[in-house]
Every structure is written in structure tokens, then in C-alpha cells.
């Protein structure tokens, strides 16, 4: 598709949308879908027809994630800007009835709530606004504009310079500068080059990538295509876990639609640039989110990591230079190109630019998906946006970074969220899972839960991770059973140090984090479980 055609579609779509009286959007992402949002959408269509609305006066659409998953199924009405929560199919007639008047009070959700007002949406800008299964919807929201701009007006090095200028860092957790990574792959010798999207989101309580893929799959494809142009790749893979069937289905649809319009495949946008994307499904191994294990899995091998160097940028998939980025990283690319690296660099903190998507879970009022600028404090996230801890309980700790992260106690809630400060606190930014705990949570239990996760997800290749996580899990069991001694505590700390420093890959190296961070802030809880006073 040429830039001109793209523009025509966008204009046509926008006009068509403006002509419609009201647009009722039903969340069709996995969270709300599991609450029967399908039946709800059907009921809304029937109710609209029954009350005499035609396709020109009311459209019912299925859109992506609206954010506040804990209050699903969610429905939004445009252009009025009304949001309804916990909508049942029986509410459909009332919603349609209220299209011309004031909103239905009983299910109305104030869209001025801090949960919505305090967010800044870049990655999720289209989430909940477009139908993820319609390419035209994405195009109407300036979709693929960045790709056509890149192909017609920018050289690969211009693109990399723009990404570098934006200060974007990898959103998978480690925070490696994206522009630098792209530059390394672009300079690497060897062809063909590969672009891989890591969508093997496995942290317990994390669902950011799933929401992006389900709500706005074309954004990821566009980001990958821009990356491929910048580094000189012609083949791409999306490695997505099979536990996300809806995301996989929407990705497949998106790839098919984009290929049909020559936005992917051969001769993209009438240029010489070719880029094909294939999907590979993960079979449920957490370690396959580690980049070298992920590549082994794509190659059809057992998903085990290998030592780096060589880094994937030099020798990746089948030995070819490979660029691997996370879903959210790719999702940031198109807006950066459209609005400029300087705009993006103006958001966030000194060293962490832009926004970050977090999945709020655990003991928090507003469970769901949020996107906030870097540098916001944890307190704002939990109490302002998240609505605080329910049932009048007190916050005890916030767990970030999943099994590789740590627990941050209440006393550090005023720290701004960025890569460096979270690391300094003994946790990590991670991919964006955020689990809130109140005083009923035992930190020893939390540590043991994550250690069990790491133990069962260890691939078994290196001994410190394979045997060390099992030993630590057993030791933590003694604390849970209240049979531990001070010597056990010392051994636990020794094992943390060993596993961190001698494991082969990131999974093992970060496996002790949940234990060491809870030991750092909640040591008395461990000591309180000693079998005897003093634990001798």
C-alpha cells in the first residue's frame, strides 16, 4: 500500500466514524472475554436493533483492553466518553436507551477517576479504542504512518539515530538502550539478519504484553517492520506463548491483513523492502523468555540458554545477527517515529525515558493495566491510580519484576519508578508486573512461592540453578514450618550469593532476588520463625 492510499483509508474511516451517532465499545480482551463479554456484545447488538438503531446511528464494536480489568466486563460509549463497569447482558437495553440521555447510573464508572486521568498512554494509545481485528481502524489512528514515513523519507541510520535520541530502553526488564542494540545489529556482518519479538510473557501476575497483542497487534508488527528496515533484516519471528490463544489469533489475523495490503511481505509500500513475520508458539517454559533459550526454541531445539557472548546481535538465530526486543519495546517505536525522538525523551526521568505499562494485581482496589510516565512514585501508582488497598487493610510491600524481582516495603513507596532506583532497592523494573501485598501476606511465603516457581522453571542445564533453587526451596520450607535455625538462615544467604554469581543465565542469576529482598526488608519475619528463641 502506498502512503497516498493509506491516507485515503484513514480519512474515509474517520469520516465514517464521525457520521455514526454513537459507538458502543465492548472490551474483547482476555480478561473481559472470560467474563462473557461476547454474550454482552451480542445483547447490545440486539438491544440496539430492538430500539430502532441502524448501522448509521449506533455501532457496537469489540475493542481491546480498556484497562480496569478488575471491574470487567467494561463498555465504553463514544463520543460521549462514558465508561460502564461490570456490565451484564441484561444491562444492554438500558445502555442503548441511555445513548441519547444521561448515562446509566448503576453501572457508570467516572471516567475522570485518577485511574484514567493520571495515566499517560503511548503504548496503549489505541487500546480500547480500536477493533484489533480491523486494519482500517488502526490506519485511522495513524497506523502504519510511521512505516511509510520511514520507508520514503528516512535512511536506516536516520531511524536508529531517532530511536537513540528518544532514549528508549528495553521494556523486557533489563533496560538495555534500544537504539544501541539496533545499531549493533545494523553494523553486524552477516546476512540474512533476523528480528525477533519476545512475547513469552511468563511472570506471575503480568499481562502487559498480552493486552498489547490482543488490543493493538498491528502496532507491534509496525514496530518490527521499522526495526527490520533499520537493521537490514528481511525475516522476523514473534515468539508468543501458547497460553495466549486470543493474542495468537489476533496476531495471525493482523499479519494476514497487513500482508494483503502490502504492509508486510514483499515490496512493502511499493518499495524494495521485504519483511515477512512468522509466529512461533512457546510450549510453556518460563526460561524461553531468556533470549538465548528463546532462539534455541525457535530453532526447534530444547529451550535452554547458552552463555553470552556471542550476543544475539552477532550470532543469533541459526548464527545470523539477530535483534530481539520485547513486545512493549516494539510498541513504542511507531509513536517515536511519528512524533519524534525528542518528544519521547521529554517524558520520564533523566535516564529512563517514556512511559511504562504495569499490570496491577494482588491486594489493590483497581486491578488492571496502566501506563504511566517513568518517574512516577510507587505511592501514586498504588494509592492514586490503583485506589489503594481494599478492606481497610494496610499496604505492606509491592512486588515488582516477578520471580526475578523483589519486594519493596511501604517505607520506600515515594521513590520514583525508573530502572536505576528499582535496582538500587533490590528489585528490578522487570517487564511490568506489580503485585501489591497487605499485612496478611507472609513475606516468607512470598519468597517460597517465587522460589518454587524458579525451581520448577529451571531448565536444568547449570547446577547452581537446578540444584540451588531446589535447596533454597527446601530451606524456605523450614521457615514456613517453623523448624528453622539461625544456621539455616546463614545457609540460605550463602545459597543466594552462590546462585546469583554462578548461574548461567538471567533466570538463575536473579532467582535469589525475592529471597534477598525480603531478607533485606523483612528479616525479623524470618527470625520470628526460628524453632527456638534465637534459633540456636
Amino acid at each position, binding site marked *: 500500500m502506498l502512503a497516498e492510499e493509506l491516507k485515503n483509508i484513514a480519512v474515509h474511516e474517520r469520516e465514517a466514524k464521525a457520521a455514526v451517532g454513537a459507538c458502543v465499545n465492548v472490551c474483547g480482551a482476555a480478561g473481559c472475554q472470560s467474563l462473557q463479554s461476547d454474550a454482552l456484545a451480542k445483547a447490545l447488538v440486539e438491544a440496539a436493533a430492538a430500539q430502532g438503531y441502524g448501522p448509521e446511528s449506533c455501532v457496537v464494536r469489540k475493542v481491546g483492553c480498556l484497562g480496569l480489568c478488575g471491574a470487567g466486563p467494561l463498555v465504553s460509549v463514544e463520543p460521549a466518553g462514558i465508561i460502564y463497569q461490570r456490565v451484564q447482558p441484561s444491562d444492554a437495553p438500558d445502555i442503548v436507551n441511555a445513548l441519547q440521555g444521561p448515562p446509566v447510573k448503576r453501572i457508570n464508572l467516572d471516567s475522570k477517576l485518577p485511574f484514567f486521568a493520571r495515566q499517560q498512554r503511548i503504548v496503549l494509545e489505541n487500546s480500547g479504542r480500536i477493533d484489533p481485528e480491523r486494519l482500517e481502524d488502526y490506519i485511522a489512528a495513524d497506523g502504519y504512518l510511521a512505516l511509510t514515513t520511514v520507508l520514503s523519507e528516512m535512511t536506516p541510520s536516520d531511524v536508529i539515530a531517532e530511536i537513540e535520541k528518544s532514549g528508549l530502553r528495553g521494556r523486557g526488564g533489563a533496560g538495555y538502550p534500544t537504539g544501541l542494540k539496533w545499531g549493533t545489529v545494523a553494523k553486524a556482518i552477516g546476512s540474512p539478519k533476523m528480528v525477533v519479538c519476545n512475547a513469552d510473557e511468563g511472570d506471575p501476575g503480568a499481562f502487559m504484553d498480552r493486552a498489547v497483542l490482543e488490543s493493538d497487534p498491528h502496532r507491534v508488527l509496525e514496530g518490527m517492520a521499522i526495526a527490520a528496515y533499520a537493521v537490514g533484516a528481511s525475516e522476523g519471528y514473534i515468539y508468543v506463548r501458547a497460553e495466549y490463544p486470543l493474542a495468537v489469533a489476533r496476531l495471525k489475523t493482523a499479519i494476514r491483513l497487513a500482508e494483503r495490503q502490502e504492509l508486510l511481505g514483499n515490496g512493502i509500500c511499493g518499495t524494495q523492502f521485504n519483511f515477512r513475520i512468522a509466529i512461533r508458539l512457546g510450549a510453556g*517454559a518460563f*526460561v524461553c523468555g531468556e533470549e538465548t533459550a528463546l532462539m534455541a526454541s525457535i530453532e526447534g531445539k*530444547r529451550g535452554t540458554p*547458552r*552463555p553470552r557472548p556471542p550476543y544475539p546481535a552477532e550470532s543469533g538465530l541459526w548464527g545470523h545477527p539477530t535483534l530481539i526486543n520485547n513486545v512493549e519495546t516494539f510498541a513504542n517505536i511507531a509513536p517515536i517515529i511519528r512524533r519524534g525522538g525528542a518528544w519521547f525523551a521529554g517524558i520520564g526521568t533523566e535516564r529512563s525515558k517514556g512511559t511504562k505499562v504495569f499490570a496491577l494485581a494482588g491486594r489493590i482496589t483497581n486491578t488492571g493495566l496502566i501506563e504511566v510516565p517513568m518517574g512516577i512514585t510507587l505511592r501514586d501508582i498504588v494509592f492514586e491510580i490503583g485506589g489503594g488497598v481494599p478492606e481497610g487493610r494496610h499496604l505492606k510491600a509491592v512486588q515488582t519484576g516477578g520471580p526475578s524481582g523483589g519486594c519493596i516495603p511501604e517505607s520506600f513507596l515515594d521513590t520514583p519508578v525508573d530502572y536505576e532506583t528499582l535496582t538500587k532497592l533490590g528489585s528490578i523494573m522487570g517487564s511490568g508486573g506489580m503485585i501489591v501485598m497487605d499485612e496478611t501476606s507472609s513475606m516468607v511465603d512470598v519468597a517460597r512461592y517465587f522460589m518454587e516457581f524458579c*525451581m*520448577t*522453571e*529451571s*531448565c*536444568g*542445564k*547449570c*547446577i*547452581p540453578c*537446578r*540444584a*540451588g*533453587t*531446589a*535447596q533454597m526451596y*527446601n530451606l524456605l520450607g523450614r521457615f514456613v514450618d517453623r523448624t528453622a535455625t539461625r544456621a539455616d538462615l546463614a*545457609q540460605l544467604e*550463602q*545459597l543466594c550469593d*552462590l546462585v546469583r*554469581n*554462578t*548461574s*548461567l543465565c538471567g533466570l538463575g542469576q536473579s532467582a535469589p532476588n525475592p529471597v534477598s529482598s525480603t531478607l533485606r526488608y523483612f528479616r525479623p519475619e524470618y527470625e520470628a520463625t526460628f524453632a527456638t528463641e534465637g534459633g540456636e
Partner: protein
Amino acid sequence: MPARVVTLQIDGRDVTARDDQMLIEVARESDIRIPKLCYVSGLSSYGGCRMCLVEVEGTSKLLAACTTAVTEGMQVRTVTPRLTEYRRMILEMLFAERNHVCSVCVSNGHCDMQWLAQHLGIDHIRFPYVYPNLPVDASHDRFVLDQNRCILCTRCVRVCQEIEGAHTWDVMGRGAQSLVITDLAQPWGESESCTSCGKCVQVCPTGALSEKGRSVAEMSKRREFLPYLTMMRGETGNE
């Protein structure tokens, strides 16, 4: 690109090497023995046992000598109190992981793991033994596989794939549940790809793979064939 010659220091000794060589190999040439379990000269490096971790000046991370190429000016320490303690702990965890009772093992006295434990001065195990219930496969005419003695070093997997070219062996499962298997986890005796060459038995560092008819302490391993075969094929083994 042709290899270049670099100079480096290992344990304070000046050493020269080609820059495509791995640290463990270079050290060995100068008679500096870095502890190892999964590494065998002549097979590709695996990097799993972490015994050969060394300290390199300028990086806070410990590097596995079997997967780290030498570079100009590198300063390497292979024995430090910290490294020795880590090696001990890793080896102790390995002893506790399955059933490694030397006194009743066919490889007693000829075992890499036992030798390494003696070398590191291990006289007791600080971790509780796990003692999983694992099978023994004696279905093969000439060889026995005892999973209880296996340390998952994958030497058998690599020698079978890289030298014999049969790829009978592989690993299944995850974490502590990992097991070496023949073909698709069939009994070894029923394996269709196994050529009964016995290379896996000879490279196995412990008593996990042994010849039938050997009693306690009778299974000594012959590894001389490996460097010879690799040399004759004109390959380094490292892909």
C-alpha cells in the same frame, strides 16, 4: 578471519595463545588445571557445571573458562578463596542431588566427580540429600544407565551427536527432573539409532554409564580416542 596470537596472564603466569582458543584449553596447555565436569577436550563446550568459573580482571562477573575466548592482556585467576568456596558448594549440591555413594559405585576410584571432591577437600556435605527415586536402564546388551549417578553434564549427548553422529542421547524434562534419554525415551536396548559404539560410556564422568559385568570400582574409562578422532576429522569440535 585468521586467528591472531594474544598474550595474557593466568594465575600470574604469562601465556600466549590463539584468540580463537577457549581459556580452559589455553590453561591446560600451560599445565594449569581448571576444575571441570561437563567440559571434555574434543567436544563442544556446554557451560553447565560452572566448575571452571574464573575471575577475570575488569569484570565483576565470573566467567566459565570453557566458553570464554582469550583476549589480549586478559588477567585471569583460576584459584581464589571465593572460587574454591563456590566450587565446593556446587559440588556438594551435586552430591546431594542424586545418589552418589562412592563405596558402592562401579566407578569408585575412576570418577571425575570423586576426584574433584578430593581435590577441593570436601569431606562432608552441608546440604540435605534429596535421594530421588530414579530408574536404572539395563536393557542394552553391553551397557547400563544408572540415572541415580547422572550429573546431567551431557557429555554422552554431545559425543553421540558430534563424534559418532548418531544422536541417540538427549535430555528430557526440566530442572531437577531432567533425565538423559535414548531416542524418544525408549529403553536403551530398543534404541534404533544406537550403534553400540560405547563412546558415551567412556566419556561419562561418573558411574552413570558403565559396561555390564563391572563390579564396584572396576569401571575405569578410556578417553584417549576422543582427541584422536577429533584430530583425524580436522575439526575442533567447537562449532
